[in-house]
């Protein structure tokens, strides 16, 4: 609405500037005409600047504008002949009135106030213009002033309502996000509290002691992951999207493995997408691989790295520095479950596996060609 007010003011000022030479020649009081024209230009620019800065039309601004429009309309008999008063070349009060309708309709929020303002403006205009050679035009014009105010008021009310709904939706989303965050914290703290409580007791059983130590290490990694800036993505949400982002599929897949020393480097593929029908497959395959790392690898680093191999084809590598295995002698299911690997290949992905005992495991998944 502010933009509309500024635009209308600019149009009004341009029209007025065009009318000034003609008006100065035909006015009954060129001096008053000139003075009022200058005042109108100043008033319009002040109002536009004020509205622009405040990002809204205040009730005070609307009333001031209404008063000014009434003043210039009422002053018309002092500087124009009755014949000129229905047109706008000399007596431009109607133009000022039209410009004021938007300010009044927008700035006065209560219907009653806007209605009263419309009545005042129309009455002043009628009073000044009825005694001209064209009383019918004067009546039509005054009805137009009322109509413009009503239209502006309705549109402004509708936009306000829309904005309020948007604000409510935004607040609801923020509340939901806050609640989800609190839930994450609860889940995290719940597990860690148990580990800490167990650690605080003295245990004479070395097996339990060792197991607790492993759990404590995993707990510390979970807390670290929580404190980090890891991208958060829920599998359900990601899988429900059309062609989800690769970064989200990866984030959702690693979410259950915060006990592992995982690094996700996906800055090179921020816009890469996964075909909708293959997203679940890929997510499952990454999880399977990470399960294997958790169970067998004893890795100190696991890195998931995405890169582009051409404009829209990406490649994801999953590399750990753990125990590794001999692909020639170890069943394939060890590194990458047979089903996961075959299903990915069937879906058009290329899967490469490279490992040796003591050398960690490197797996590369390349997206199918084409979008």
């Amino acid at each position, binding site marked *: 609405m502010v933009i509309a007010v500024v635009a209308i003011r600019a149009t009004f000022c341009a029209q007025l500037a065009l009318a000034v030479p003609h008006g100065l020649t035909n006015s009954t009081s060129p001096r008053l005409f000139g003075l009022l024209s200058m005042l109108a230009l100043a008033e319009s620019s002040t109002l536009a600047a004020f509205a622009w800065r405040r990002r809204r039309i205040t009730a005070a601004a609307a009333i001031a504008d209404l008063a000014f429009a009434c003043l210039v309309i009422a002053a018309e008999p002092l500087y124009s002949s009755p014949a000129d008063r229905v047109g706008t070349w000399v007596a431009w009060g109607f133009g000022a009135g039209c410009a004021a309708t938007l300010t009044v309709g927008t700035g006065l929020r209560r219907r009653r106030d806007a209605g009263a303002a419309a009545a005042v403006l129309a009455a002043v205009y009628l009073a000044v213009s009825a005694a001209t050679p064209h009383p019918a035009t004067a009546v039509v014009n005054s009805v137009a002033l009322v109509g413009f105010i009503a239209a502006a008021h309705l549109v402004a009310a509708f936009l306000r309502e829309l904005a309020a709904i948007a604000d409510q939706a935004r607040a609801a989303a923020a509340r939901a996000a806050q609640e989800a965050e609190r839930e994450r914290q609860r889940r995290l703290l719940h597990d860690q509290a148990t580990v800490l409580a167990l650690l605080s007791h003295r245990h004479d059983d070395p097996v339990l002691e060792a197991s607790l130590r492993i759990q404590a290490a995993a707990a510390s990694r979970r807390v670290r992951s929580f404190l980090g800036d890891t991208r958060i993505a829920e599998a359900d949400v990601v899988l429900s999207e059309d062609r989800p982002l690769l970064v989200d599929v990866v984030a959702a897949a690693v979410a259950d493995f915060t006990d592992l020393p995982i690094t*996700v*480097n*996906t800055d090179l593929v921020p*816009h890469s997408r996964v075909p909708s029908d293959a997203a679940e497959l890929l997510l499952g395959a990454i999880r399977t691989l990470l399960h294997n790392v958790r169970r067998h690898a004893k890795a100190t680093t696991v*890195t998931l790295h995405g*890169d582009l191999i051409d404009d829209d084809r990406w*490649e994801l590598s999953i590399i*750990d520095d753990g125990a590794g295995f001999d692909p020639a002698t170890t069943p394939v299911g060890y590194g990458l479950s047979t089903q996961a690997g075959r299903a990915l290949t069937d879906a058009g992905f290329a899967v490469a596996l*490279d490992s040796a005992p003591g050398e960690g495991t490197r797996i590369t998944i390349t997206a199918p060609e084409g979008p």
Partner: protein
Amino acid sequence: MNPDADQQATVAVIDDDTIVREGLRALMPMHRVTCAFEHHSEFLAERPSVDLVVLDLNLDGVGQAATRHGATAIADVRDAGYPVLIYTNENRRLVLAGCLAAGADGVIHKTQSLQELADAITAVRNGQTVITPALTGLAEAIDRYGHLPALTPRQRQVLAGRARGKTFRRVASELGISEKMAHEHMSAVTTKFANYLRTHSPTDLERTLGLAQGDLLHRPTVEESSRPSA
């Protein structure tokens, strides 16, 4: 006689956690922790003679304030003439990048092994910059977006391998170079990366990483990315 005597560094530890201060004294392989302080101001008051400082990124508070606090400590210790290795639980990449920008010579996580810490101390003592795997990924992204000053093809290959999580041994064998050479190439990369961070604001960094697809200036060729064979 200690066989590693020429590699042994004297280290000061600054950490508000007693266990870390006492633990590193007792457990540090290779190097000698000669003194430990709870706060960097105590260290600066005493200014002991050590080769380098292992500094906990002490986060008093959260967010921006914490980052500023950490940066001040790093700058103060660095200005006193000591190389600084950040030893932290902090995991946010931009905060860690901020440490390098503030003058730290290296960053290592508390979850990494003591051997890795000892290796990092050796590297920093030798004038190299040490970064975490996640920061390696960040360095690769910044290079790819064309913002790291001219890496050589070899340096870029080593960086690509390390960002993917490959060990130095693996990278070296894939490129047919010695492990020592691989370390040296990576060291040149981290130095350029740290210099980039020191001359650019966090906003620059975020803007760089927020660039749209298509702004990538360099893509490694198939040989460069040295992907594993099936």
